[in-house]
């Protein structure tokens, strides 16, 4: 997995690409999320448009990120989830946990501005 970061006002967009599957990905993602929270950046949008697939370990990474952000008083949402990943979220009912939007723009407006 690769991560590209963009800040759009108070929302931090993280573009994940490649595949999310555990191994080094877990620490990379957790550290980045911790750093963002420490910097006071609490509105996080994961753009999964370029993520080709995910395994259940990858789902765990998303959940741990979600939990960290929530516990830190922030929000984490998803945008542009590919069909293959969407269907894994559906069957595991994680689609009831993650707020998900078809596009980044549609997600951005839901954060509310400061």
């Amino acid at each position, binding site marked *: 997995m690769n991560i590209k970061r963009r800040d759009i006002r108070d929302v931090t967009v993280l573009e994940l690409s490649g595949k999310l*599957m555990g191994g080094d990905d877990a620490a990379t993602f957790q550290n980045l999320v911790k750093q963002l929270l420490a910097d006071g950046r609490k509105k996080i949008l994961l753009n999964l448009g370029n993520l080709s697939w995910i395994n*259940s*370990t990858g*789902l*765990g990474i998303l959940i741990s990120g979600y939990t960290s952000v929530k516990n830190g008083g922030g929000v984490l949402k998803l945008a542009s989830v590919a069909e293959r990943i969407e*269907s894994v979220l559906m069957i595991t009912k994680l689609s009831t946990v993650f707020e998900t939007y078809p596009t980044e723009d549609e997600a951005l407006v839901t954060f509310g501005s400061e």
Partner: protein
Amino acid sequence: MNPSGGWESVELVVPSSLEYLSLVNAVAEEISERLGIEREVRDAIGSSVIEACTNAIEHGNKNDRKKSVRIRFRSNSERLEIEVSDQGKGFDPDSIADPRDPANLMRERGRGIFILRTFMDEVRFAIEPSRGTTVTMSKKLGPALPKEG
């Protein structure tokens, strides 16, 4: 892919490292595409193979690159059967909790077996503690035409 009507098989053996999951995924994709399987079902098969291999690599072979994971794709005109074997100690597949239970929903692990059981039509585990675990999953094939090209 198989005008003779009998079973035909492709075998792939990879070292026990998660890095090889993309190769496994590429092979699963290529085989399902060849069999004329539609996008959605191909995704379900790909996700299932990835889960079975993740377990074989992490739990079965404990990420020991010297141990290998064997994946066998067998197909006839009616179904695609995928076998994933490791050299680990096995486990009790009946003790797997439902990850959708509210008590489990936010857990970081415990979704792999559920995913392959949900996506595939049939899943069997053959566990021989002295030799390893083999997961056999199968998917019925619709009457689709193989892709040309």
